[in-house]
């Protein structure tokens, strides 16, 4: 029932929320409460988002002019060696990519929002293994520390993809600490995925069949499967890279009889599924945003749920589409191309289903919904441009150009990050007990939308015209487009800073609401909206039971009667 008073918790007096139930730093650092862990992950990932984002601002500034200049100017002003500007540029884009992938996007939705929401949505008191959850967090922190150390120990200039032999035999930067950091972060991801998988299997509320689970949980489940199965291969890949670098085992070094392309196979075997780890939770968020804010039952529940699982499975067999021009055989290219197209179909089904959900709904254009709708726009572009890259003959031309850069930013940023921001706003009251200022939310979203498209859309054109990626200098014909891109980046920066400003501002004492926020400000029908805002430590007072699906909003059925089915 989508009303403001929670059906399950009605009658209970307000209790201290999870935020204040335990006091003291130790109670946070050693917490096993999934909600607190989620908030800690949120803080950590946002710090790294800022660091990686500023790297991007730095190199986008360098790219305002075709030749060198901006970075060497800064280096000189800092008293550093200006002849290192090309290397510095390479370090900036590497750090941007590596921090974004390993420290922000992979953990953010699952570990931050997922941790907070999963038990609540399932009607459970916590995840299956709360202490393992705590361990996951500290393993993440340890991995992050290795990355931070890397930044100070000479940086990293291999690209986030660490291709050999450059990374193993040629780069003079702190490759070992970065690789080891990524290795450790992988374990955090595996343990989180394992935890979520078991939680969903074993801890759903009585009455909550798989088909009555919120789609966000389905998405987290599919993501968890990938995390559990793919990340160990990354662990081995990085271990072999470390062995190659320290012991010269020769597996990737041609001078010793090894094969550098083997590294690419190993690497992408994990990293392709990894991009689905990044996007699937975003899909889950969008399902929730669109359904709740159009107050309409999601269209095609089964299709959306099962397509997540299909995507998870197919994602394991498409890695070679990153390697069409690597010298792998044509047959391999054909097989991988075909399977890549296969993975497009379940994705398209989702987009259509979300749009169909709007049909005869009751749409409210608040900030979370704006981001949900924005996602449909930007992710569709991202997904469609993936088709170009999956097409063999066209990919030969587009591989390693700005077209690829634009594609993955449209899906990862236009997809995951935008969904994430939408989810952040949607669940902000539940997580913090505070409300963000609505008009600021809407206007900031405009900055994000305009800035994002301005930065990345014309990169498709640039790429098609032959502008290669990871280029410190470029031929002058591309300058106008680069300037456009950089201006877009600055607009994005303003947008993000604004969001940070008002979200953090909402947490200040003086902005506390005079009355506690209602349990269900949006009229959602899933279980997290049927408990206190913010939740008590044990989430629910008793064990909630479920007898309907999480999208049962007040409906008009065919006979015109109001129906809560």
């Amino acid at each position, binding site marked *: 029932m989508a009303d403001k008073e929670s059906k399950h918790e009605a009658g209970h007096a307000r209790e201290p929320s999870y935020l204040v139930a335990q006091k003291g730093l130790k109670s946070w650092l050693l917490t096993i409460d999934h909600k607190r862990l989620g908030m800690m992950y949120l803080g950590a990932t946002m710090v790294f988002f800022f660091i990686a984002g500023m790297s991007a601002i730095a190199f986008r500034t360098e790219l305002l002019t075709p*030749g060198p200049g901006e970075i060497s100017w800064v280096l000189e002003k800092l008293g550093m060696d200006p002849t290192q500007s090309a290397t510095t540029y390479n370090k900036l884009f590497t750090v941007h990519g590596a921090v974004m992938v390993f420290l922000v996007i992979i953990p953010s939705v699952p570990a931050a929002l997922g941790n907070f929401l999963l038990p609540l949505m399932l009607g459970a008191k916590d995840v299956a293994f709360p202490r393992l959850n705590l361990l996951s967090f500290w393993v993440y922190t340890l991995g992050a520390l290795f990355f931070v150390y890397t930044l100070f120990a000479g940086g990293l200039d291999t690209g986030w993809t660490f291709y050999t032999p450059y990374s193993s035999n040629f780069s003079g930067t702190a490759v070992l600490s970065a690789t080891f950091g990524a290795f450790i972060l992988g374990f955090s991801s595996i343990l989180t995925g394992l935890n979520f998988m078991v939680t969903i299997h074993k801890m759903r509320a009585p009455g909550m069949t798989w088909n009555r689970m919120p789609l966000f949980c389905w998405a987290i489940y599919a993501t968890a499967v990938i995390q559990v199965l793919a990340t160990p291969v990354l662990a081995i890949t990085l271990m072999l890279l470390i062995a190659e670098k320290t012991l010269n085992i020769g597996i990737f070094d041609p001078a010793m009889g090894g094969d550098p392309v083997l590294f690419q196979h190993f690497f992408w075997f994990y990293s392709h599924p990894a991009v689905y780890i990044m996007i699937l939770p975003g899909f889950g968020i969008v399902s929730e945003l669109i359904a709740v804010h159009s107050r309409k039952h999601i269209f095609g529940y089964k299709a959306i749920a099962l397509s997540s699982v299909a995507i998870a499975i197919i994602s394991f067999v498409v890695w070679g589409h990153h390697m069409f021009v690597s010298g792998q055989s044509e047959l391999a290219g054909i097989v991988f191309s075909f399977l890549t197209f296969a993975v497009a179909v379940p994705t398209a089904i989702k987009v259509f289903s979300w749009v169909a959900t709007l049909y005869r709904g009751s749409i409210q254009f608040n900030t979370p919904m704006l981001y949900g709708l924005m996602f449909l726009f930007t992710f569709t572009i991202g997904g469609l441009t993936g088709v170009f890259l999956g097409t063999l003959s066209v990919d030969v031309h587009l591989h390693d150009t700005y077209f690829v850069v634009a594609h993955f930013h449209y899906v990862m940023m236009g997809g995951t990050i935008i969904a994430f921001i939408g989810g952040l706003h949607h669940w902000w009251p539940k997580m913090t007990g505070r409300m963000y200022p609505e008009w600021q939310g809407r206007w900031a979203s405009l900055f994000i939308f305009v800035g994002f498209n301005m930065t990345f859309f014309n990169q498709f054109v640039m790429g098609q015209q032959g502008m290669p990626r990871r280029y410190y200098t470029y031929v*002058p014909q591309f300058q106008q487009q680069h300037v456009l891109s950089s201006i877009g980046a600055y607009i994005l920066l303003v947008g993000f800073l604004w969001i940070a400003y008002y979200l953090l501002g909402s947490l200040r004492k003086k902005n506390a609401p005079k009355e506690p926020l209602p349990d269900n400000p949006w009229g959602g029908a899933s279980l997290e909206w049927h408990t206190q805002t913010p939740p008590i430590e044990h989430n629910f007072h008793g064990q909630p039971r479920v007898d309907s699906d999480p999208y049962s909003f007040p409906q008009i059925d065919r006979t015109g009667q109001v129906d809560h089915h």
Partner: protein
Amino acid sequence: MILSMFMAPEKAAPAAQKAAETAQAAQAVADPTLHKQGAGAVWETVSPWAELPQASTFAEGVDLLYMFIVALSVFFFVLIMGVQGYFMWKYHRKSDDQKTSSITHNGKIEFLWSAVPAVLLVVIFVWGEVDFLKQSVSPPDAVQVRVTGRQWFWTVEYPDYPGVQLTSSVDENAVTLVVPKGKPVQLTLTSEDVIHDFYIPAFRVKRDVVPGRYTTFWFEATQVGEFNLYCAEYCGDQHSAMIGKVKVLDPEHYAAYLIEAGKLEQEEGESMAAYGQRIYGKRGCNACHSLDGSPKIGPSWKGLWNKQETTDKGSVTIDDNYIKESVLEPNAQIVVGFEGVKMPSYKGQLDDKQISAVVEFIKTLK
């Protein structure tokens, strides 16, 4: 300069370019170690919004498929966004307790919107695959070219023209590859160090260049002219400097041009030092060694002759022997401060006479 962005493309390009060149000239003074990309080099003054030339037999096909996908994408995007926009307008919330429809699925529509994209995707896949396979099988009578990628320049050799070697150089804007129009050309590529990638956008061809093995691809150029060539696999510091020019000539002029451009022999009446200077410019030395004392990737040649240097194996005087050893076995004795750099060896690339010429040239750089 920013305003020029909003001018019409034809006017904007030269203005932006001029501004860029002036800026770079200024930068070159401020930072002489960096390659002077753009300044002095004659790149195509192409408008950023102009179409990429279709200069090979593959190009039209690739572009056609590309535009087909664009058309389909635009169609579906407009359709989806149009429907979305319409729903956003028609179904905005009218009252606080508004009820919504109970539609939760529709088998027919769901089948349609799964099957139609699937069919279209198969069409695109097959088309792409067919074109791709055409690119894989080189015609038997193709002109053979061998390319070697090194950090950070290309060396191109022609088995049919012994002694001819072209080297890329971003400063000189050197022609790196010369091919005849209308004849298939097959490239066999390898790297001496890390993975590079040989990319000619105008031809729509690209292939990774891998150390320890050979990769190949072929094309047939259809237009006379000059086209950009890029390294398209990140390979370290000067990755963006590994660019060059592909020159397409009519078959009648091809051989003569190649021999003229590629052969590096001492001309009549040319001094050893002048010959050495030409070698400096044409064999990639300029990528890493400056002539004016400024530090580049490798030590500067200014004042190098008879200099007392400290290497990782002890003290050494820079003489004929050390220079020859540095050319043939560069990592035998490395000057302190340059240990991390891996200079590629020129064994087999420069004969003894050429090395002596380089030595004579270095002697003139006081």
